[in-house]
């Protein structure tokens, strides 16, 4: 309890070095909105805390030359929300990030932390998956990239190798006619954990859907990329039959648990309802883009 070391390096190399050297006894601190709660509950007892908020690359937002975005893993929801362009280009991703916790939590919590916390109900993750975001990770053996969907391994577990730190998210450039959206279902109106979360990102050309990705949260041990749902939409004019097929694909993908917030039957049913509503919003945005 009292023998925790705290380190706030200014460079990534330093952070990776210390993190790797601690051999699993260390935890990364971004906003701390999950870590500190887990420590307080006695669920984790790190020997070393590596605070990454002083590393410039991890707290900055850049527009890439090709029109995409690179977001540092420790950028807070509030900072992302104040970016002049990001919310116009990726309104669905921003909505999802901004749904993490309360206003106070938004000042601290980051999409990187949300992803590495590896909760099946993390709000930003389905939207990031739908956006086809790629993460950059850095470890003792250097840098590599992996799709967001490949990061979670199960509740509370990731596929990051020992010593690896999540550095940033890269979101691809947007074609004309692209739009995204995120909706989640929670039992009370705010300050709650998603019972189902649905991210949709699609592109329309002359009313026909040319690309679609669907991320589905809180219905399986990890957030899912529901490929079949995307396929059902592509090539259609988002008619009722296509949307129902996508909803059915979402329901079929569900492998949820029963808990206080929702039963298996409830979550499965809601996955389809949310898909339809989220597609509606994404399509509206695509039509205007």
């Amino acid at each position, binding site marked *: *309890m*009292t023998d925790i070391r705290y380190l706030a390096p200014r460079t990534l190399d330093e952070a990776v070095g210390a993190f790797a050297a601690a051999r699993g006894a260390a935890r990364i601190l971004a906003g701390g909105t999950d870590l500190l709660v887990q420590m307080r509950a*006695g669920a984790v007892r790190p020997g070393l805390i590596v605070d990454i908020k002083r590393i410039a690359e991890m707290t900055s937002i850049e527009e890439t030359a090709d029109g995409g975005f690179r977001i540092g893993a420790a950028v807070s929801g509030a900072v992302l929300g104040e970016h002049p362009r990001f919310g116009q280009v990726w309104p669905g991703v921003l909505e999802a990030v901004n749904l993490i916790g309360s206003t106070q939590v938004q000042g601290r919590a980051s999409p990187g932390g949300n992803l590495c916390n590896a909760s099946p109900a993390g709000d930003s993750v389905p939207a990031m998956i739908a956006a086809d975001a790629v993460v950059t990770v850095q470890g003792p053996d250097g840098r590599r990239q992996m799709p967001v969907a490949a990061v979670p391994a199960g509740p509370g577990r990731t596929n990051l190798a020992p010593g690896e730190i999540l550095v940033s998210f890269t979101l691809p450039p947007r074609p004309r006619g692209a739009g995204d959206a995120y909706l989640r*279902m929670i*039992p*009370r*109106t*705010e*300050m*709650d*954990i998603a*019972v189902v979360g649905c991210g949709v990102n699609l592109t329309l050309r002359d009313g026909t859907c040319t690309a679609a990705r669907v991320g589905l949260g809180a219905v399986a041990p990890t957030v899912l990329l529901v490929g079949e749902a995307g396929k059902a939409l592509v090539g259609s004019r988002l008619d009722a039959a296509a949307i129902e097929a996508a909803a059915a694909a979402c329901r079929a993908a569900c492998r949820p648990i029963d808990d*206080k917030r*929702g*039963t298996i*039957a*409830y979550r499965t*049913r*809601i996955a389809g*309802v*949310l898909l339809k509503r989220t597609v509606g919003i994404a399509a509206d945005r695509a039509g205007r883009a």
Partner: protein
Amino acid sequence: MLKEPHVGAPRSRVDGRAKVTGEAKYAAEFPAPGLAHGHVVSGAIARGRITGIDTTAACAVPGVLEVFTHENRPRTAWFDYKHRDEVAPPGSPFRPLYDETILYSGQPVALVVAEDSGTARHAASLVRVEYEAGAHETDLLRAREDAYVPPKRRSGISPPPKPRGDAVAALAEAPLRVEAEYRIATEHHNPMEMHATTVVWEGGGKLTVHDKIQGVLNSQGYICNVFGLSKEDVRVVSPFVGGAFGSGLRPQYQLFLAVMAALALKRSVRVVLTRDQMFTFSHRPETINQVALGAAADGMLRAIRHDAIGATSRFEDHQEVVVNWSGLLYHCDNVELGYKLAQLDIHTPADMRAPGAPLGVFALESAMDELADKAGIDPLELRLKNYAETDENEGKPYTSKELRAAYRLGAERFGWSRRSAAPRSMREGRELVGWGLASGVWEAQMQQTSARAVLTADGRLEVATATADIGTGTYTILAQIAADAFGLPMESVTVRIGDSSLPKSPIEGGSWTAASAGSAVQAACHAVRETLFRHARGAEGSPLGNADLDHVAFVDGRIVLAADPDRGIGLIEAMRAGGAERIEHEQTASPDKANQKRYSSYTHSAIFAEVRVDEELGVLRVTCIVTAVAAGKILNPKTARSQVIGGVVWGMGMALEEETLADHRLGRFMNHNLAEYHVPVNADVHDIDVIFVEEQDSRTSPIGVKGLGEIGIVGTAAAIANAIHHATGKRIRDLPITLDKLLERPPAERAR
């Protein structure tokens, strides 16, 4: 002519600034030199015994002073009756660290005391406890088979009245019948402030105790009985309480532990419970209601049967008034009510806001809605048809009852006449809209209370009584009453409460504090006025001459002739004339026994609720509540409105969210934090409109007050459940009405 009195006017809280600036100190905030910190180790099984406690590792942590367990605790009172506090129900009270027996999950099994709280918390995690588990039961649905009528009644709690008429026969013959079972989940109080005690070791065997308690005298009495101390040596000072809602009526285990440790270590000790540990004592008992209504085809009630089973612990018979309301709210000649308890391996439940009433009234008012549906009568009309003019439980008239006016005013404000009768017939966009109503009722009481008033020659007035302000506005209404007695601004009045050295007051509860403490303060002020008036009349050249007290008014710091307000004498001048530096009087106000014998006194409300349901998702919002409250005189419409709103919001929580779920395999509550135990958040709360109905009541208390603390919650959950039925056609009879119940249950399920 006379300035508007403070009483009856909306006034901001006199303690508001102190609270928002942090100047107001709560139990865990009082400093003490050399303060040690205790952290409680909570037990892990529901029933059985401790076979061994290893405290070696905890004791080895630098900074740890002592680890107390049942094996090494200092001797305290041996007999359990010594542990009975002033509101204890019949039974054998829980005695912390008494022996190796485990009575419920989360029971305190050790207290680690250290130089700082972090060390105590860490060391507490190192205490190893071995148990031998026994078979436990925490499921009321199974334990109900063994329910019993409590052999000894709890003081202050009326058992069900004797049956009147023949409810069984009348029910059998009734053309319309509704019979159903209604359940309400276990709920925890969850005040913002954790339960905490700071014991200040004053030396010389004296203790000052800051405890989170709704009655300092209850804690003082408990400490003295348990630890064999004299009242002169124990002063309990709790000027502010950060919400309690009943969890602070009885001294909780942290008080025992903090005092025990302070006495053993001979130094100041603080024990603060964690949010998790807030789920290891008092709660609202899970309750099962069975209601049967019989009515004529026109809706006139012929028979009412209401039987309830409430959960209690193995060691105390906690009782509440759950079913009596069903004999009270409506005129009916054939009524049979029953109330039983079923024992579980849990801590003893406790009073929670309007104990018993929202449980029984949810059942009755849901059943009335079902009857209205069956009879094809508007739910409001059904209630007016069966209106009870007198208390038929006791055969007494009411001191006052303006429920009819409450129905009318509430219905007008809500727009009830625009309701379309059929379920599922109102819709807006993709949402179904439902309107429902219910009645609320709570007893209006006054308790004997003493107060002191001191007027000093600098024109300041201090009033004092030992009562508590748990966030209700007691400081403010006492300042209003006192200021009015002398025509002073409220700023000239100091109110002192929450201190066992002050004049006696009962615990703050039952909605009786305004009536009781308010009457006592007024009586003390009036006694001071009499003395002051004598000085005033005796002053040289006093314009008051031969006037008596009835002919003068106290205005703007002066005593003036009521008929000629220009003639008068200043308060300070009058005191000087009498050579008095201070005038002090203590008075005791008591309820009028003759009135109590002859009349019944209750507050009433009519609650109208609107819900909107997104049926695809099962998402439900309570978009509007109008509650019309008849509660006698309203001392302060601003704090009164806040009180009622708080009750209404809790009623929303009860209807839709609040539920402490047990894992029956482990005999343990699972959702022991505010992330999993849901209460309404701001975004859940939409329009709440509170109407205070004009009601004259001269018999409940000398100041015309009937009390407001509880009435806001009573009936609110029923109104919401009825609105949900109107919106969706689904009758959900077990609270809370969660999304899965709404979505997965078929709409046709009707009461038999």
